[in-house]
């Protein structure tokens, strides 16, 4: 009997109601006996609801038919029926799980109010009902139950603002309910049934003015419940003031119920799909825009919630519009789960941190565990991998592209970018330590629900990945490795770094060694180079929490990037790289703020790339990277979008403003990886795109010419800007930007020689920039300075570092006989061959300008007058020098025998661009000129040795006295102090007078004004939120009117 009850009733979906109502009935009774027993019962009930939903969903997933429940044993339409299918199961399980976690989170408050237990159960049951019921009137009842329970729960905290918010809430939901009821009545009048399936079956009856009015009321009601812009001020007030546990449930649970109601009534509302999409899209975009102005943490989450629901609505409408309901679980489900878990987690976290202003979240600074949770939730919300939102957005955008709904792609991506902007600004504020902060008092166990939400995000993300991709394990390998390293993060620094190196080297080798052609070459640079440079990270003895796991993820994601066959795999690795490098930048001393800029530009780049891939998918119907070329007429657009994305990532002129801050403020050793290695990923991407798209048809050619100019202007202005830097790392940052500009031009040449030049420059840039940044890391370590004019004369203390820097700089400058010359020679030949004369002239100029900053770096740091306080400095640690001298060795080998490098490069390119290099012995010939590197090396060595020997000989007869740094001819005076004798500050003042006007920070001003405009726009969009309940009610009515008018209400 009991067994039967359990299997027949309790374990059926209906059991959820039974459990909820039963427990609800019993809780007050238990409470009289003992508060704890009531709470136990309450949790049992919630757990039971989760279990029932889970068991039933599992059955359905295993192939069981959707469960139809007929109350009172009578079939519809004469009685209410419920349904528990795949969608319902998923939603119910998700909502109930969140409810359970939320209850856990809210436990301390629940202990205070016994009635809350009851209300909470009823609210959850109401949401369950909204999801499962198939009866329109019953739906209304459940909506009402939920609303009232919510209102009551909100009102539990009896402060003025909460009560006001609750009152506005009840007004708004009442109006919406009234609309719903009206709609239901009209529909019943037309179809004679209250059953939704029945109505759908008689869809044709719902027409004419009454049908229009009926569906309009229904639609308006549901949309209002979803809090569309601008009729959502009441919702925001609730989010802001309600206790965290409740706000989370309203945000995710109640909204989910309403959303599901919209989903199931959608067949009735198919006339309004466009309206729904517009409402959703506008809400998503505008909420996120307004979110920019927000600095109240909870209200910020409110905007984000509303935005996310807008996105869900848009996704739903668009999916139905495109007729791809099969993708609905992935798109809507993914977005929903993502929003549910991340937002609930964030609301709970906000509750725990209990700081209103986002600025005050700096209490989290220096607490890696909490920050990690916070970061995971934010990343999920923004749609970064590996969380469900990432996959859902991918599918959504590709499907939108396939359906030709391009404007919506813009809306989705722009909205996401805006959301990322304010969410990560919040994160940035949390990262910055402030003096005034008191340590937070969050107990570890209270973070459990948040942590569970984060874990579930990973799990669901993986689940979605399995659905979409076959190679999931490889894609997740970086994350797995990162997790493993993170678990071992307590080990001593040296051990950690060695472990990381082993993991990355082994993993990287396994991932990249079987690659071929271009990918193989980039494998050497990205993985091999990354490991080599990471060797130097051991020079710091401090703990560096989180550094090694993130670096491991970054390097391995670069490896998986190279392995990617489909655009999805590529994009996944790309985003993973973006995320991990962002987090690594934030670890730098002043890294938080520049990292935000870096992230936003990287995300913008990523969204360009996403759009490009989506368009390519739309055109070719395939996700294979190899199919990028089959994109037909949209090839030019695809190329431009992808190239734009990659150029942003290389720091192209105009979008370079992230470069100096990021390179300047990131950890010194990580900057080497960032500049020498990570930037090459963008080059790889660009080459990939150019290989697939740029050369298959003429259409690639015009964007390529533009790209060539962008590259060369970047090179010129990068060099010019580097000339005027005082900060050594910023100088190198601008230098990187400039050097990558040459590479971009090389790629844009779209010729065999051009690409050989580009690849050669890529390898060379890796070599010398790795040395330079590591050398600078040593200098900064010893001097604790980054401003060059505060250094000077360090050659006496750090001769090895000086030699490394000098060789790297000669290799960069293009002076024979080192590698730089080859790059310049190849590029110049390729440009002349192509007839790009103006670019060639510009290249001459920019490489001449580069001399200025190169000399400045060497002189002001290593030469000139040494400061007194630097007299005792020691040489940089050996572990920093070893990779530098290994790289120097490579430079020397390639300088003497460039054939070793050029032949593999040439053969890697041949499949894409026919042609090969003409060798005559060791001499390389082009159409124009020739280059015999070994011979040049020999001649230079010879002409260098002879005067040296001569001078040594003369020195034998000379009395050469080694003198002090002040033993200089100082116009018959003596130098006063090293500071005023060392000519270093504003080294090129006259150059500034002549050409400084070229490098006024125009790009920075431009982007600043963009930010300012967005804020102004956001501020003007906020005028609707005046906090007045009457106004809000008026908006709701007007919303109905507008929908009425827009959908042609006057033509009836």
């Amino acid at each position, binding site marked *: 009997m009991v067994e039967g009850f359990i299997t027949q009733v309790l374990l059926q979906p209906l059991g959820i109601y039974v459990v909820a109502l039963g427990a609800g009935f019993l809780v007050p009774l238990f409470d009289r006996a003992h508060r704890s027993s009531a709470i136990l019962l309450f949790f049992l009930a919630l757990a039971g609801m989760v279990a029932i939903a889970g068991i039933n969903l599992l059955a359905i997933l295993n192939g069981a038919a959707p469960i139809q429940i007929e109350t009172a044993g009578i079939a519809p339409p004469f009685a209410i029926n419920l349904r528990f299918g795949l969608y319902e199961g998923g939603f119910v399980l998700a909502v109930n799980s969140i409810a359970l976690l939320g209850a856990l989170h809210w436990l301390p408050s629940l202990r205070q109010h016994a009635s809350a237990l009851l209300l909470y159960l009823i609210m959850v049951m109401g949401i369950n009902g909204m999801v499962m019921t198939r009866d329109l009137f019953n739906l209304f009842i459940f909506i009402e139950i939920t609303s009232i329970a919510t209102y009551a729960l909100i009102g539990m905290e009896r402060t003025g603002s909460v009560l006001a918010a609750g009152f506005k809430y009840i007004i708004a939901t009442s109006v919406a309910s009234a609309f719903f009821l009206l709609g239901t009545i009209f529909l019943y009048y037309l179809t004679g049934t209250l059953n939704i399936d029945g109505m759908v079956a008689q869809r044709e009856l719902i027409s004419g003015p009454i049908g229009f009015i009926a569906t309009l009321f229904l639609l308006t009601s549901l949309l209002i419940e979803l809090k569309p812009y601008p009729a959502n001020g009441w919702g925001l007030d609730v989010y802001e003031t309600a206790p965290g546990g409740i706000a989370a449930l309203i945000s995710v649970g109640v909204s989910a119920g309403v959303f599901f109601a919209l989903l199931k009534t959608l067949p009735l509302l198919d006339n309004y799909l466009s309206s729904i999409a517009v409402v959703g899209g506008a809400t998503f975009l505008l909420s996120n825009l307004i979110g920019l102005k927000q600095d109240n943490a909870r209200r910020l989450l409110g905007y984000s919630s509303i935005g996310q629901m807008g996105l869900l609505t848009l996704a739903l409408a668009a999916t139905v519009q495109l007729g791809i309901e099969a993708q609905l679980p992935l798109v809507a489900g993914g977005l929903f789960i993502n929003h549910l878990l991340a937002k609930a987690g964030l609301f709970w976290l906000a509750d725990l941190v209990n700081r209103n202003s986002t600025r005050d979240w700096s209490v989290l600074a220096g607490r890696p565990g909490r920050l990690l949770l916070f970061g995971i939730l934010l990343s999920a919300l923004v749609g970064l991998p590996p969380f469900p939102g990432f996959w859902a957005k991918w599918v959504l955008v590709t499907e939108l592209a396939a359906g030709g709904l391009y404007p919506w792609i813009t809306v989705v991506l722009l909205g996401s970018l805006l959301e990322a902007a304010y969410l990560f600004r919040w994160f940035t504020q949390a990262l910055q330590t402030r003096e005034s902060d008191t340590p937070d008092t969050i107990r570890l166990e209270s973070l459990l629900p948040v942590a569970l939400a984060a874990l579930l995000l990973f799990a669901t993300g993986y689940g979605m990945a399995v659905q979409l991709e076959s190679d999931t394990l490889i894609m997740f390998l970086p994350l797995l490795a990162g997790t493993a390293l993170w678990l071992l993060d307590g080990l001593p620094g040296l051990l950690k770094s060695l472990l990381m190196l082993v993991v990355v080297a082994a993993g990287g080798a396994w991932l990249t060694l079987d690659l071929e052609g271009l990918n193989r070459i980039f494998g050497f640079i990205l993985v091999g180079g990354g490991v080599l440079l990471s060797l130097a990270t051991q020079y710091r003895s401090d703990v560096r929490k989180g550094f090694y796991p993130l670096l491991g993820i970054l390097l391995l994601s670069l490896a998986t990037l190279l392995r990617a066959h489909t655009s999805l795999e590529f994009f996944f690795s790309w985003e993973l790289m973006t995320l991990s490098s962002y987090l690594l930048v934030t670890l730098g001393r002043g890294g938080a703020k520049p990292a935000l800029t870096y992230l936003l530009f990287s995300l913008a780049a990523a969204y360009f790339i996403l759009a490009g891939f989506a368009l390519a998918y739309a055109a070719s119907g395939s996700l294979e990277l190899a199919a990028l070329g089959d994109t037909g007429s949209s090839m030019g657009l695809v190329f431009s979008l992808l190239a734009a994305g990659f150029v942003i990532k290389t720091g192209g002129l105009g979008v370079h403003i992230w470069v100096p801050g990021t390179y300047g403020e990131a950890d010194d050793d990580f900057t080497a990886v960032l500049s020498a290695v990570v930037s090459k990923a963008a080059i790889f991407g660009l080459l990939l795109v150019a290989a697939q798209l740029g050369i298959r048809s003429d259409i690639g050619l015009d964007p390529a010419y533009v790209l060539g100019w962008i590259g060369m202007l970047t090179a010129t202005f990068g060099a010019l800007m580097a000339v005027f830097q005082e900060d050594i790392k910023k100088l190198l940052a601008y230098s990187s930007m400039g050097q990558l500009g040459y590479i971009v031009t090389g790629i844009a040449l779209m010729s065999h020689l051009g690409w050989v030049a580009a690849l050669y420059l890529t390898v060379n840039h890796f070599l010398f920039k790795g040395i330079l940044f590591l050398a600078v890391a040593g200098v900064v370590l010893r001097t604790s300075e980054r401003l060059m004019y505060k250094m000077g*004369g360090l*050659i006496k203390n750090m001769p090895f570092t000086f030699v490394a820097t*000098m060789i790297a700089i000669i290799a960069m400058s*293009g*002076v*024979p006989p080192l590698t730089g*010359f080859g790059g310049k*020679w190849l590029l*110049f030949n390729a440009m*002349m061959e192509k007839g790009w*004369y103006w670019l060639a*002239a510009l290249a*001459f*100029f920019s490489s*001449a300008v580069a*001399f*200025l900053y190169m*000399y*400045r770096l*060497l*002189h002001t740091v290593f*030469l*000139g*007058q040494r400061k007194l306080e630097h007299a005792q400095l020691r040489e940089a640690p050996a572990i920093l020098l070893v990779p530098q001298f290994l790289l120097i060795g490579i430079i020397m080998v390639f300088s003497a025998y460039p054939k070793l490098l050029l032949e593999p490069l040439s053969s890697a390119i041949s499949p894409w661009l026919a042609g090969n290099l003409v060798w005559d012995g060791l*001499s390389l010939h082009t159409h124009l*000129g*020739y*280059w*015999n590197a070994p*011979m*040049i090396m020999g*001649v*230079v060595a*010879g*002409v*260098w040795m*002879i*005067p*040296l020997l*001569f*001078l040594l000989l*003369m020195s034998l007869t*000379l*009395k*050469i*006295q080694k*003198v002090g740094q002040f*033993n*200089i*001819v*100082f*116009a018959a005076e003596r130098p006063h102090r090293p500071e005023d*004798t*060392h*000519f*270093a500050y504003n080294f090129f003042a*006259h*150059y500034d*007078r*002549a050409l400084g006007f070229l490098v006024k920070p125009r790009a920075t001003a431009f982007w600043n004004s963009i930010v300012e405009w967005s804020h102004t726009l956001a501020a003007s969009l906020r005028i609707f939120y005046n906090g007045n309940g009457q106004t809000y009610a008026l908006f709701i009515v007007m919303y109905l009117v507008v929908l009425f008018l827009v959908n042609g209400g006057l033509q009836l």
Partner: protein
Amino acid sequence: MIAEWFGRAGNFSLTLLIVTVYGLLVGAFIERTIAKVQGRIGIPYRQPFINILKTLVKRTAVSHGIMFYLGPVFRIAGGIGTLAFIPVIYGSETFANFSYAGDLFLVIYFMFFGQLGMALGAGESGHPYSAIGIARGLSQMTAYEVPFALAVISIVIQYDTLSITEIVAAQQGGWQHWTLFTNWVATLAAMLAFLGMTGYSPFDIFLAPQEIPIGPPTEFHSAYLSLLQTNRALFGATKLVLFMNLFFGGATGWIELMIKTLAIYMVAVVVGVAFPRFRVDQSIRFFFKIPTLIGIISIIYVQMMFTS
């Protein structure tokens, strides 16, 4: 193989000797010419040689460090190397030097070798005037590099080669084939750049003897200075040879070479005695105006004239 290398080195040593001696003599000749204009007698022809000798037999010296010591070595290696990559006499295997190791592009970039090394050496002397001089010199270099690059690109388009030997070959057969006459626009641009390159007035601010005692080499003396003095003559002559090869039809014999290079040198000298010194920002602006414009025109011109 070894013998061949020694043979080449021997040939080049001969070239080196001739060009250095010639460079020193030209220097004396110009000095004497200027002296005559001023109503003086001027230095004897042997004076440059004695000067080098004198610095060489100085008995004391100081050193500021290893780069200071190596600076002049780099400087003269830059001069010798540049000469090594230029074919001096057209049609002569003996005086083709090592020009088959690299082309015009190599020569242009190798010119920086000595400058960079010297700049490092001067930098280590710790003298602020050295650094100021270098900052000025480098800045000015970026400016005259522009018209020069444009002119070079122009003639590379014209002759469709980067090989100096072939460029000279294309100018053989009479004066009317010289670049000076076939592509006078490029020649004009290049000669304006040449003024900056020689470091004569009005573009000698980076030396500025009265203001920043001769700039970069202000701390160099004794044997270091002798290397620098030798290089000054050698490198100056080398640049003349390069310009002669690119724009004035090259030379088939030493006499022709001397006449032509002297004529080219006289351009800089005449301009130098006639114009006062520019400030650095003024000279940068100067090069970015008319000479650059002429350079741009030269490319347009050559595209119209020589490419179909």
